[in-house]
């Protein structure tokens, strides 16, 4: 006698011996364990159970109702041992294990993109229709532009799904061989579909969006995408353009030269400057190389990013970027070093003075400017630009003349030439290494408005300060052109330098006095100056008005007094006209 059990196998009821049941249960249990991780594992077990039920059915009859152990052994022999299943499905099994280690990953779906594939990538990840996300992005874009920023961030953060494995991960499908196969087939047929619909993009999008709204948004996004693409291309061209313009203008400005504030800068000037500075060739070279190195990095980057945006070439790797940074830094260091070396050449200062007696002719000294073609070339009054090049030779206009009262009973001219140098002696030597035209004769001082450097002498900020110490009673006449060298000459009438030219000036106890300037003109000038000055004072005081009221009153009174007093003083001081000999 055997104990039997009732079992439901594949929807059929069987009576089965206990030991046969145990064997069957063990078999199915092993199979279940084997397939529980496989995609569709339950279905396989169901199919197997169905088949086994059929086989058991064949082995039962009204005369043999119970399934015994022998039947089970036979059926298992037909179905095969669990290892046989495994051998057949080895590959699928192996892959199915891997699929559990590979989770879903967020990627941009670049194949179904409208702009950057962010919405389609997200929708693949969350398994929803991308149109919802697209509408959401559009709504966020319209309401405050947040969507735009979010989209850009996501675009930057999410990697594009380029490989088949990435595309499967994006959809959350395990990366199994069969899945890749399926995917590739799907993609292939999708491409075929697209190709067949090449007749019209609108039709393509119409077919994609299931309704009119869908195709409407698809069209809008298509437009936006095109606009974006266009903008990026424009930016690319912009970068390229900047780079090319910078290169072009650098070349042009170097070889042809540019005019800045009426001053010409170019290769000639640069070479002259270098020659005039008489620098070591090593300093010259390091300046040139440093400038090139500094320029190279930014220009390359501009060109590169321009090309990248337009043609989508690979981004620069980090070593290349580091290299560019190093090149630029090297350029900066070279410039700094050569700058320090140049600065050392100007470290110390030195000067020399010469004193020459200026004999007056009947109490008159004419101060004249030596006029020549160089002067005509550049005009007279050009203090702003102390360095001029003419026919490849440098001329410096650091020449100044002042007039002071002589404490002795003779007039004399002190010429002080000063310069910079690495040492004091060097500076003194440099101050002597220049050529300046200066003629002193009876009743005449003639100076050139410029000096040149002696042969092979370096420019070390040389300048010439001439001071004419005028004996009281002697008169000078400032000839036409003197305005280019006279500098801040004190005079009783307080004329400005350019206005002093063309007049006779006599040294008095109170200073230099104009003897042929019209009295009305003087007074008028004084008044004009005074009004200007008081205006300046008032405007300067206005800040203090807010602080203290009493203070302004005092200040205003002072101004008032000055206005009344000064012209009177000027008239009073005017010596009799006949005492001047012309």
């Amino acid at each position: 006698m055997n104990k039997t059990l009732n079992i439901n196998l594949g929807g059929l009821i069987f009576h089965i011996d206990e030991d046969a049941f145990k064997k069957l249960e063990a078999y199915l249990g092993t199979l279940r364990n084997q397939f529980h991780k496989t995609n569709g594992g339950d279905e396989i077990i169901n199919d197997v159970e169905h088949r086994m039920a059929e086989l058991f059915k064949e082995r039962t009859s009204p005369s043999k109702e119970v399934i015994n152990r022998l039947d089970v052994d036979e059926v298992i022999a037909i179905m095969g041992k669990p290892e046989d299943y495994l051998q057949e499905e080895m590959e699928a099994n192996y892959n199915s294990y891997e699929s559990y280690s590979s989770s879903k990953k967020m990627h941009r779906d670049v194949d179904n993109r409208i702009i950057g594939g962010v919405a389609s990538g997200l929708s693949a990840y969350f398994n929803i229709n991308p149109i919802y996300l697209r509408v959401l992005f559009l709504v966020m874009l319209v309401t405050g532009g947040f969507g735009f920023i979010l989209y850009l961030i996501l675009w930057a953060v999410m990697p594009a799904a380029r490989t088949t494995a990435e595309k499967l991960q994006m959809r959350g499908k395990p990366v199994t061989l069969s899945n890749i196969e399926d995917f590739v087939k799907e993609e292939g047929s999708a491409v075929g579909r697209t190709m067949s619909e090449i007749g019209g993009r609108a039709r393509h999008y119409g077919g994609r969006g299931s309704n009119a709204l869908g195709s409407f948004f698809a069209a809008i996004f298509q437009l936006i995408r095109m606009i974006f693409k266009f903008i990026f291309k424009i930016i690319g061209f912009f970068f390229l353009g900047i780079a090319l313009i910078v290169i072009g203008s650098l070349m042009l400005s170097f070889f042809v030269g540019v005019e800045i504030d009426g001053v010409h800068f170019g290769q000639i000037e640069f070479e002259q400057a270098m020659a005039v500075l008489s620098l070591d060739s090593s300093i010259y070279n390091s300046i040139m190389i440093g400038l090139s190195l500094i320029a190279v990095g930014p220009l390359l980057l501009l060109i590169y990013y321009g090309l990248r945006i337009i043609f989508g070439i690979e981004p620069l790797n980090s070593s290349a970027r580091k290299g560019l940074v190093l090149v630029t830094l090297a350029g900066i260091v070279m410039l700094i070093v050569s700058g320090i070396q140049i600065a050392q050449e100007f470290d110390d200062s030195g000067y020399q003075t010469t004193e020459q007696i200026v004999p007056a002719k009947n109490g008159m000294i004419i101060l004249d400017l030596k006029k020549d073609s160089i002067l005509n070339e550049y005009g007279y009054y050009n203090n702003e630009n102390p360095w001029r090049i003419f026919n490849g030779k440098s001329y410096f206009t650091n020449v100044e003349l002042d007039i002071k009262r002589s404490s002795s009973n003779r007039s004399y001219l002190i010429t002080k030439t000063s310069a910079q140098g690495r040492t004091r002696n060097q500076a003194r030597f440099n101050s002597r290494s220049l050529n300046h035209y200066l003629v002193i004769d009876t009743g005449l001082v003639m100076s050139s408005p410029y000096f040149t450097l002696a042969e092979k002498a370096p420019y070390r900020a040389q300048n010439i300060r001439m001071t004419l110490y005028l004996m009281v009673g002697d008169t000078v006449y400032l000839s036409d052109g003197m305005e280019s060298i006279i500098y801040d000459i004190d005079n009783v009438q307080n004329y400005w330098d350019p206005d002093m030219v063309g007049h006779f000036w006599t040294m008095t106890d109170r200073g230099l006095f104009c003897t042929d300037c019209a009295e009305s003109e003087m007074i008028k000038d004084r008044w004009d100056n005074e009004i200007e000055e008081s205006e300046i004072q008032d405007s300067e005081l206005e800040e203090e008005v807010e602080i203290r009221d009493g203070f302004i009153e005092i200040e205003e009174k002072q101004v008032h007094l000055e206005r009344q007093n000064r012209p009177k003083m000027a008239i009073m001081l005017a010596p009799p006209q006949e005492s001047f000999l012309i």
Partner: protein
Amino acid sequence: MNLENTKAQMRKGVLELCILNMLQSRDAYANQIIEDLKKAELIVVEGTLYPLLTRLKNGGLLAYRWEESTSGPPRKYYTLTELGKSALKELHASWEKLQEAVNQSIEETNEK
């Protein structure tokens, strides 16, 4: 060296082709497919077939419908999908190429 394993691998490669080919002319349920395959000595045990069928079905190459049976529980009748048809064509072409290549390779080697 386990030759049986190699043989099994060889069989396995063409098993899918044979199943798809069988279903091209008529729909069939597992038992019928098994019978045919057993006759052709392509499978030894029935159990190997079920995971294979499930995989083909999951891959979209096959579909099935339930049909009542007079002699027992309802049966799964497998039928070839459009994707399955194109896959069959592909596999068939590939098989012919492979056959040709193998034969040619063997013949050439033997002639030498």
